[in-house]
């Protein structure tokens, strides 16, 4: 459902979201911030690895592999 807020880890392959917020004091979120995954940035999940973890996400034209535990530190609003 569009607009619903959920952790990035909950998006399935092919789904998109816009970053709302994150766990500011989590090391993973800080590193994502440095890479430019800021509130307002659009992010999509490209693939989920064979055993369900990690996920491959795309934002700002770059692709990143990250574990679900780390992706859970980012809150996104679902798009489309």
């Amino acid at each position: 459902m569009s607009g619903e807020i959920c952790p990035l880890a909950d998006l399935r392959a092919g789904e998109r979201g816009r970053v709302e917020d994150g766990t500011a004091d989590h090391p993973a979120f800080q590193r994502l911030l440095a890479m430019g995954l800021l509130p307002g940035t659009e992010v999509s999940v490209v693939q989920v690895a064979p055993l369900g973890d990690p996920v491959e996400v795309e934002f700002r034209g770059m692709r990143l592999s990250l574990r679900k535990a780390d992706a859970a530190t980012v809150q996104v609003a679902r798009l489309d």
Partner: protein
Amino acid sequence: MDKSRSIRVALVGNPNTGKTTLFNRLTGSRQKIGNYPGVTVDKKSGTWQSGGRTMTLVDLPGAYSLAATSPDERVALDFLTGHLSGEEKPDAVICVVDASNVVRNLFLASQVADLGLPLVIALNMSDAADKASIRVDAALLARRLGVPVVRTVATRGEGIEALGKAVLHAVESRTLMAEVPWPEAVQRAVKYLAAGLEKEGAQSLAPGELRRILFDRHSAVLERAGWPAGSDPEPLLAASRDILTAAGWQPLSAEALLRYEQLGHLTADAVSFPEKRVRTWTERLDTVLTHRVWGLIVFAAMMFLVFQSIYAWSGPFMDAIDGAVVRMQEWVAPWLAAWPTLQSLVVDGIVGGAGGVFIFLPQILVLFFFIALLEDTGYMARGAFLMDKMFGWCGLNGKSFVPMLSSYACAIPGVLATRTIEDPQARLTTILVSPLMSCSARLPVYVLMIGAFIEPTYGAIAAGVVLFTMHFVGLVVAVPVAWAVNKFVLRTRPQPFLLEMPPYRLPRLRDILWRMWERAREFLVRAGTVIVAMTIIIWALVYFPRPDAVRERVVEELSVLNDPDAVDAAVSAAYIEQSYLARAGRALQPIFAPAGFDWKITVGVLASFPAREVIVATLGTIYGIGGEVDESSGDLRSALTREFWTDGPRAGHPVFTVPVALAIMVFFALCLQCGATVAVMAKEANWGWAIFGFVYMTVLAWLGAVLTYQLGTRWLG
């Protein structure tokens, strides 16, 4: 500025942006490059001549920010802040920026500039950006940022002259990048922090350095500022950060928001993306290669193909080298006929022993061809993505994948590559298990055993399968080992794992050939030095003592035969049986008896602890001396098949059976027989852990060999 002093320039940038490619171009060096993040893990210097000036260029590991959470990023931070022992701050910095991803790359540039360092931006990979119709207006960007921006294509050497001019200009006029308009709260917090540090008697720091301490959770800058040992900086940090919190800023995310906001303004209109998004090659390939089903199938198929090819492609070349070694022995032998001892040393010892190792050069080349291919296409990161979960549960980081895969080439670069792992304990675990990966030096043992015992009985496919399996034994064992180390020794907590997936790139043949050549050279040098030295020692221990009584006894016993060849062979055998090596081997053989090893294999195994290829040389020497001089050890394979037990319960049966061959391979797969690796482990961790690694692997190898032999004899008869 002083014209005589050499200018020191640092290369920084996000991982995988082409810093080392540029460094190699500018300095004529040949440092390792590859299409995945984290290739460079240490600083490397070279000399760069440009515009009549000589500069010292320093290539640094890539980083996304100066938060320096892993040892390799720490090297970059320490160098830039002038804290690396014996190094001053650089005079200027070239920030290498991926032209397809300018904003994110400029985040690091902005942090570097904040340290007060003159900056030049190299807009690298502009060829790839052009192809993707991403336009970057370098002139506009330069005006907005306040520093030179030079378009470069490092792979083709484009933009290098302009870069040289820009750097000299930056050094002369100290061009600094536009500063972030820091909110009043940040300025206040920095002042507060400075005052607090001064009160504690710490070294005074520049505002940019203070901001590092303020914004990064645990900045290494604080440690280097001479914060009084023993006292806790947390209260001061917390009080400074409270100033930010009170003004509505989250201290640990404020910097990213502020810098990206400024960069958004500075790059507006200077960077434009195509209206209609084109589907890139990378996207198309990834739909298959990282797919949860297809991805795994392709991965397994590729690995199998690699090992099958190592075996299949190198056969003819091996035979050619083999032939050359034999011809060399035949050619040398008559020259030295007058001095039988010297003849044996040269023919059986040096040529037979070290030559026996040279034969495996083709396999090494094929293996490195594939490794270079994996590294340069960008597939490595995909492998890490597919495999992460399988290794993650035991405490290994997804980032352990790259060091572990590098260890398939050689554990030394593998252990060094662990520097990209943030968590010290995950890093230590990776250092401990990396030597379990089957390095290229094990290949000769596998190929020798498979060629002599598996292929003749079970065929070429089975040979490929066994080779593939041997390369997986270490990996399969590594997982429980890592689990146990984490559970009982280190108690690691899970760590963030973020790995950028580089775009797929067509590898350049030159890069691949160079890497193959480098490796081949290393292999040959090793065979020519360490292995020759070991071979000479082994030869001496097999050749001596030579009391005449032995010869006389055998001659007398066999005098009825009237067959001089048979007598000669029997004499040689009798000499070996009472040699120093045989005495030592017999004394130690009981240790390996449960694995089915005779004394010759036992000494081979023991002699191989400094370098594992020595086993091949040792067997070559032993059988060389045993055989007749002129048709000696060239064909080690058939010599092995003609070896029988002379005493004990299996007297008269062949020594080398399929279970014995498998047990030898398993032993070599699991054992840490490499002095150089132990030394590197000691350097990267400490001697205690290096010895721990050595001991556990040796024990594991012995258990593995015994288990293989015992089960093997039961099942295969």
